[in-house]
């Protein structure tokens, strides 16, 4: 910072806005300098903790993951890193289990996200009516959000059991044979999707409800004057108004489904859980990463999996951006 001695104010070539203050006693000049510094620096001081913590425990490890992925590192000896180049990447890319995990993650993501968001949309529409005890209903549908992945996965594991599972017991009433949910390729994915749907539908419904309440009612009045039915109003007024929110929930749910870990781990528990089923039928990418790093103790390939996940995430973001552009154009 420039000095604020009176001489500078007198001889400085630039017009000095601080001239009046420079004349006043030195103490006041010091105070005003402090003021200005306070004003300039405080915002950065207030946001610094976020960026420091994120930098140290988020961004730095994220980049470092790429470096580890090019090395051989064993969980048993973390200090020793041996350069292996692209070997870890070629190992996982040639592993059919990796591709199983990619397709499982994708399939479970779709069959959990799509029904979840559709139901949430319908629920939000119901909650948006004039309801008795509306807070009660909202709280009830949000309750699963307060449950942990572990508790939810464990209670649903019992519901989906072959023998004495609640669901198979119910199926027996309609004369159906019990289903071995966890062993089947589709049924196990459906079971995991159900856990996800159970935990998150209410949460998404509340987000949609908030967005619906921001839609000006003029639009509905105009639509009903034009003779639009309630269904037409929902399709032509509500849905377009909610488009950004819907996109937002799709992004969030997609990222969430990339992370599925506790649900598959605990569906059967034990050794089967740790490798995503006896035939990897419900192994997700997170389970695959965990298995490489924390069961097989090879951290190099585990880091390579993390970067493969990053690549997938960027791919999804790109697709999402494209879809967003196309739908915006067709809407205009």
């Amino acid at each position, binding site marked *: 910072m420039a000095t604020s001695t009176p001489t500078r104010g007198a001889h400085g070539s630039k017009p000095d806005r601080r001239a009046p203050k420079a004349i006043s006693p030195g103490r006041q000049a010091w105070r005003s300098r402090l003021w200005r510094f306070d004003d300039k620096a405080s915002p950065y001081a207030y946001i610094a903790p976020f960026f420091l913590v994120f930098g140290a425990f988020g961004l730095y490890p*994220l980049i470092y993951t790429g470096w580890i992925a090019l090395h051989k590192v064993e969980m048993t000896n973390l200090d020793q890193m041996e350069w292996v180049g692209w070997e870890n990447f070629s190992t996982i890319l040639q592993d059919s289990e990796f591709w199983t995990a990619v397709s499982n993650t994708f399939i479970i993501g779709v069959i959990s996200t799509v029904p979840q968001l559709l139901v949430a949309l319908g629920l939000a529409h119901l909650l948006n009516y004039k309801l008795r005890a509306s807070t009660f209903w909202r709280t009830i549908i949000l309750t699963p959000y307060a449950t942990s992945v572990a508790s939810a996965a464990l209670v649903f594991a019992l519901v989906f059991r072959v023998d004495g599972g609640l669901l198979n017991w119910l199926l027996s009433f309609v004369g159906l044979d019990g289903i071995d949910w966890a062993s089947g390729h589709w049924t196990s994915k459906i079971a995991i999707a159900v856990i996800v749907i159970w935990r998150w539908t209410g949460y998404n419904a509340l987000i949609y409800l908030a967005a619906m309440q921001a839609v000006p009612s003029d639009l509905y009045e105009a639509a009903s004057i034009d003779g639009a039915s309630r269904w037409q109003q929902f399709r032509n007024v509500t849905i377009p108004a909610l488009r*950004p929110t819907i996109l937002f929930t799709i992004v969030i749910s997609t990222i969430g489904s990339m992370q599925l870990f506790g649900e598959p781990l605990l569906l059967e528990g034990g050794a089967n859980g740790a490798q995503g089923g006896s035939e990897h039928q419900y192994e997700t990418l997170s389970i695959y990463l965990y298995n490489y790093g924390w069961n097989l103790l090879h951290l190099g390939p585990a880091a390579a999996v993390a970067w493969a996940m990053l690549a997938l995430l960027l791919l999804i973001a790109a697709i999402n951006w494209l879809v967003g552009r196309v739908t915006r154009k067709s809407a205009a």
Partner: protein
Amino acid sequence: MTTTHTVTAPDRRSVSKNDVPGAPARRNRFKQGAGRQHHAGPFAYIALAVVGFGSLFPLYWTLVAASRSQEEILDSTPPLIPGGNLFSNLEAAWEQAQLGKAIWNTLIVSASITAATLFFCTLAGYAFAKLRFKGRGALMTMVIATLTVPPQLSVVPLFMMMSDIGWGGQLESVIFPTLVSAFGVFFMRQYLLEALPYELIEAGKVDGANNLRIVWSIVLPVARPAMMVLGMLTFVQTWNDFFWPYLALNQDNPTLQVALGQLSASYVPDQSIVMAGALISTLPLLIVFVIFGKQIVGGIMSGAVKG
């Protein structure tokens, strides 16, 4: 993610409901959204009741299973009402999974993360909402972008770092990476944008308060309702966190969720004891939910992105 975010303070709706009679009629027309003018028919109540039943039943059945024996819950006719084994199961879970230590650990982790999140996110949220500084827009975009980075991407080096620092298996390794949250910054910013008028800050300045003083005596009191909500959301989230704690902590020093995961994963477990553990880990949050459900619902709705 770069949609425009309209601001909504949690108490906005209740304020507009008490509009002064003389206020312009135009504001009222924007007050209510889709379908609000229509009363819900019986179909709506039936549908809500079905969904509500689906939401609550697994929780109820956790209690049923936790209060029965393994044989009873795996019977070909599973029980639908609680039995008499609750306390013996709770005791067994308590011993097998060191739940006492796990509860203590979870409390330490959740409380310290919640306190830190509230402090740092309120400060950052205030700066982003009301202070002018170079790079504000770009930095806020970065904050929001970090929302999309899953923890999976950084767990491997994080694990190595923690063992380097000497935090391997320690609670610090779970606490420190979560001290701040992008959602928290965003949430506080949205709230303060609307709830904190510039006039208040100006008045503080005229009275000769420095920035820290303004934060302490003006921003914090205004932010208190939003901090309550953010605190509850953060607490619920950290209490339930599973992935990173499961990788970072070991059997001797688990959080509740980790202990629960180990209880079910380590050997052939007794399901009724596992469910007793699940009940212990869920019950505190359910109580929080029964008491503060309304605020949490309001918080999620106000944190929602409206574009």
